[in-house]
Every structure is written in C-alpha cells, then in structure tokens.
C-alpha cells in the first residue's frame, strides 16, 4: 500500500485527521490553518483520505480520490493541483454524512452582540461572500458552509473553516483583505475558479462561542434590492432540504427545527451588491427586539 502522511485539525466542535498520499495538500492546509488550535495526541471525530484515483495516478497526472470514514460511491476525482479543495470537500462530506451533535444547516453565519445572522440558499445565492464581507465589517465570522444548531439550547455554534470564494467574489475580497490570508488560486474546478480565505483571527479564537439565532435570510444575488416575507411552511421545507442530517436526528431534529422556525424572524433578500445587502441587513438588525 502507498505511504500516507497525516495532520490533525480542530474546527469548532469537530476534529479531523486528514490523511493524504501526497504531502502537498497537507502542507497547504498546515499553512492556512496555522492559527487554529494545534492538535497533538488527541483522537478525532473523522478521517478524510486523499488517495490516487488509480495506483498509477499517484505520480503521473496525479488524480485525487476523496474518501474517508464516510464516503460517496461516485465521487469524481480532482487533479492534485486542487488537492486543498479535495481536503475541504472531504471534511464537508464527513460532516454532512456523519455529524450528529447538532442539526446541520447548509448556511453561512455571522455574529454581532451575541446574536447570529444565518444566511441560507442555493449555490450562487452569495451566502459565502456575504459572510466573508460582513466578517471584515464588524461581524464575527462563524462559518460559510454549515451552521450548527444545538438540539438542546437552540443556539448556533461556529464551524469556521476556510471560506470558499468563487469567481468574482475572489477579486472583491482581494480588495479588502491582505494577500497573506489567501490560499492558492485554483482555476477551473468543478465549481469554477476558487480561492480559500482564512477567517479573521477573532473568528478562530472564538470558535467555541455560540450565539442565539436572531435573523434568518434567504439571499438572492443579481436581483433588484428587495425584502420579502416568507411563509413558515415554505421556510421549514427549505430548511429540511438544506439540512443533511435532519432525518438522521429524528425527534430531536424535528423539535429543534420547529422551534427555530417559530422563533427566528425570516426574510427573503434580493440584492445586486454587497453594499446593498449590508444596508438592508443593518436596517433589519436594528429593528430586532
């Protein structure tokens, strides 16, 4: 069997072992996660495996198969140049298929005054970019992929991984953030051009601090700015579709999600620029009890 290298990472409540047949993706992870707590001599929740798609793909046009404790049968391989993306996708996969300690919502979240703003929607809604921008404008970044909803307390817990910026968002963030916080450019991935952004130090230091959910937004980029009400039934259904573990959590999931939908105000928000979005968010936030 081929030799494997490994590192350990802790992000919010979850700990990972990332094992890789190549050093390069791990070196990139170590550099970008350098401010995160160092894990030595601790057990983990999940192992991610980055392996050659076929044995001869270790060296020749190296191709990375994403695997681990939890895996999908038809996962498409990535070239080694996108090994960092493969590692991040591998961690997403472990959480999506294996995490049970919170209800997972496919959403970004940021915190201010002890309260959390959660933004959910399909790819292209802009939730990642908005969370990255707000993180540079006085909000604490909590996560851009998963918001963790506690079944007991109803609070949102952080899962502050590297922020995944796509296409135009990369340029927009490069104007406001130091270059040292960016990962390598990865062009023409299955999701377009991608660059990872290290969250602000404060977000990393406070990765174990939850916040009470205060506002849920369904952002939609590329439409004239508008705020709309949403019916609770629609919100509930869309949130179950945005959660990979709602069914797995059974009664606890049902109670947590119904409580969330009952208690958290929600709006659909159309916008054409992050400035517009920020203004609408600022107004809504000010109107909260």
């Amino acid at each position, binding site marked *: 069997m081929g030799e494997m290298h490994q590192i350990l990472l802790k992000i919010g409540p979850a700990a990972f072992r990332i094992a890789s047949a190549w050093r390069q993706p791990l070196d990139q992870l170590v550099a970008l996660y350098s401010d995160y707590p160092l894990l030595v001599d601790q057990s983990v929740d999940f192992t991610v495996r980055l392996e050659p798609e076929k044995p001869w793909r270790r060296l020749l046009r190296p191709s990375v198969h994403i695997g681990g404790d939890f895996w999908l049968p038809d996962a498409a391989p990535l070239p080694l140049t996108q090994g960092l993306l493969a590692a991040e996708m591998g961690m997403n996969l472990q959480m999506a298929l294996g995490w049970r300690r919170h209800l997972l919502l496919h959403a970004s979240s940021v915190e201010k005054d002890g309260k959390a703003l959660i933004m959910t929607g399909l790819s292209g809604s802009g939730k990642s970019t908005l969370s990255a921008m707000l993180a540079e404008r006085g909000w604490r970044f909590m996560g851009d992929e998963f918001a963790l909803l506690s079944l007991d307390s109803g609070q949102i817990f952080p899962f502050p991984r590297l922020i995944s910026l796509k296409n135009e968002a990369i340029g927009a963030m490069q104007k406001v953030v130091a270059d040292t916080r960016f990962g390598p450019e990865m062009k023409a991935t299955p999701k377009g051009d991608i660059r990872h952004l290290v969250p602000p130090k404060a977000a990393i230091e406070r990765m174990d601090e939850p916040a009470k959910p205060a506002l849920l937004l369904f952002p939609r980029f590329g439409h004239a700015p508008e705020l709309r009400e949403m*019916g*609770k*039934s629609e919100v*509930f259904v869309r949130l179950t579709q945005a959660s990979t573990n*709602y*069914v797995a959590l059974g009664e606890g999931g*049902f109670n947590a999600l*119904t409580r969330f939908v009952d208690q958290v105000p929600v709006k659909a928000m159309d916008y054409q620029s992050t400035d517009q979005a920020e203004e609408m968010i600022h107004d809504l936030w000010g109107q909260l009890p």
Partner: protein
Amino acid sequence: MTQKYRAAAQDDLIWHELDSMTLLYHRTSGITHMLADPAPAILEVMEGLSLTAAEIAAQLTARFDIESDIDAENIVIARLEELSGLGLVARVSG
C-alpha cells in the same frame, strides 16, 4: 361502507402547526409529514377510536363549518387511503 379505521396512537405523534400546513412527526417511522386540511382534522377526530368513514365525515361536519353539498364521506375515504399508505391509519378487521 362499514370498514373501520384506526389512527396511530396519540403518543406516537407530535403535532406542530405552521401557517397553512400542519407538521406531523411520526415516532415509529421517524418520518415528518406535512399535512393539509382536512387530514389533520380527520386524525384529530379519530383519536383513540375505531371509526368508519361515514362516522368521521359526520364528526367533521359537526365540528367544522362544512357545506352540506360536499360529499364529505368520499373525501374522507380518499384521505384515509392516503393516510393508510403512509402508515398513519390502519384498517381495522372484524
């Protein structure tokens, strides 16, 4: 029709009202159902009892303001068949 039906036990169900729909978590199956009227009302009327479709229709007509020209019994039968497919209602034999 003299076929009687029985609903799942009350402690097997968790109800939650949203605006236009009613959520129902069925403990035995772990399935969350989203029901529109009159399904929740039918289940409520059936609580703890074995009833025929006609009896259920009569209860609904009495409790809620239902127009008299609606063929309530056939509507109830159709809903009962759906609910029975979902495992929320069972046909009672004998």
